[in-house]
């Protein structure tokens, strides 16, 4: 049995999902030979510490850690001070400066801790530096949950499709936009109406601009370009058009000719724009689903689809990253 001490930084929707999933999967992980112990959870109000593992039931009902915190430590300070093997970073994303996640990741990697994250901002802002920091300290940086949520994409390309040359990836990487476009097509309702509906259902944020202006999708394009295509690009290298200009009439005209209009991110073209997608194409998925077509030399085109967001779904991608770190280490140990 291998003991792994885990710290969680960020206790929002995804943070709650992570606590829940680690708790639910305890037995299964033990059967794999992994004893994952969640020894700390931190948010902007403080930290809960428990050397023998945090009682999930006790904190899951709390929206923030304010009433249950056992320490005042926050952010970077907590990451550096707590003796963990792995840090899960799930604080709110900021695509401009990457903070606070960037600081957390730097602190974790430079003190020799693996990092698993769903936070796009730090990777968009300084992927190369974080990657080098991980290499220099002999630890891993895993971020499957940043693109396409639970839909396997990064690990699919890096592991399963290894040996293939990847020509490109195109897909739907934002469930909010896809939901809005789907509803506009189905009901012939204008954009603003579909947006309010999405907001009511909690699919869109009160300030939806990050999703509907294509910023989120562009961030994912940057991560894919840097991580899978070694392109070393910045956010500003992506040509971005959101969905706010798409009308129900445009969707109807397209549909009549067999096309759906989807917000498509394209690597290595580095574009995000509303695009006509044949309705019978496997990437033309509806609702909040995400999808991606991976163009390869040996395997042809591979298409994946799945839920792009959600608390448990994102935590699932984080869990598989954690397991893969220790599986890889096992393989390394054999050789």
């Amino acid at each position, binding site marked *: 049995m291998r003991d792994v001490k885990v710290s969680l930084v960020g206790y929002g929707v995804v943070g709650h999902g992570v606590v829940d999933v680690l708790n639910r999967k305890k037995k299964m992980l033990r059967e794999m030979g992994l004893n994952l112990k969640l020894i700390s959870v931190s948010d902007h109000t403080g930290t809960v510490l428990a050397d023998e593992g945090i009682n999930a039931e006790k904190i899951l009902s709390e929206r923030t850690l304010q009433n249950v915190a056992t320490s005042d430590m926050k952010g970077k300070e907590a990451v550096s001070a707590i003796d963990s093997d792995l840090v899960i970073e799930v604080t709110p994303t900021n695509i401009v400066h990457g903070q606070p996640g960037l600081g957390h990741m730097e602190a974790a990697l430079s003190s020799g801790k693996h990092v698993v994250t769903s936070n796009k901002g730090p990777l968009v802002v300084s992927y190369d530096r974080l990657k080098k920091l991980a290499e220099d300290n002999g630890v891993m940086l895993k971020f499957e949950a940043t693109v396409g949520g639970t839909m396997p994409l990064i690990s699919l390309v890096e592991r399963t499709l290894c040996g293939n040359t990847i020509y490109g990836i*195109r897909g739907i990487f934002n469930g909010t936009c896809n939901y809005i476009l789907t509803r506009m097509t189905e009901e012939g309702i204008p954009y603003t109406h579909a947006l309010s509906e999405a907001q009511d259902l909690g699919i869109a944020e009160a300030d939806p601009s990050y999703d509907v202006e294509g910023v989120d999708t562009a961030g994912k394009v940057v991560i894919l370009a840097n991580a899978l295509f070694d392109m070393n690009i910045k956010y500003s290298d992506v040509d971005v058009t959101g969905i706010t*200009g798409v009308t129900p*009439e445009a969707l109807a005209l397209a549909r009549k000719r067999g096309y759906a*209009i989807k917000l498509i991110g394209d690597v290595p073209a580095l574009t995000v*724009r509303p*695009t*006509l997608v*044949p309705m019978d194409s496997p990437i033309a998925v509806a609702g909040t689903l995400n999808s991606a077509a991976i163009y390869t030399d040996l395997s042809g085109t591979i298409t994946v689809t799945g839920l792009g967001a959600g608390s448990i779904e994102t935590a699932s991608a984080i869990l598989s990253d954690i397991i893969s770190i220790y599986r890889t280490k096992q393989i390394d140990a054999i050789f």
Partner: protein
Amino acid sequence: MRLSMDLELQDVPGQLLLALQPLKDNKANIISVVHHRDRKTPRGTIPVRLVVEMDRSKLDTIKNQLKSSGISVVRAGEDRFIEAVSVVLVGHVLDSDLGDTVSRIDSTGFAEVMDLALTMPGVNEPSSAYLKIRATGKTEIQKALGILRQVCREKKLLVIEPIEAEAV
């Protein structure tokens, strides 16, 4: 390159074989042959339309060989507009001079707008248009889309292009 040819054959046995021989000799790939026996010309000849895929530089050689076999070549040339693409435009499509938008494509000579559908929900609201553009080849389609993108940038229209089927 894809070419089409209209020939006239004498109404005697073996003429079609004679007409196809020069194409075979010059490695032209025959896509279709339509033999109009029912549409005999006033000259008593039988019109035949061929579509072939071939190297354009061989066209004159083939024409001369056909003539020397006594077959008249009525017309031979590039088959135009074999590629098409669908595009949706959103914005003040009509007010920004739709006629000009279309003619900027049509005036290229290698591409033209062949279908257009317009929806205008209200006077001050953005209208949406579906355009089908056809062109003489894949490269020309890309050139036409390039022009359209430029025109729409000038006119502040949103261009929604089709996804590429293959990785570029």
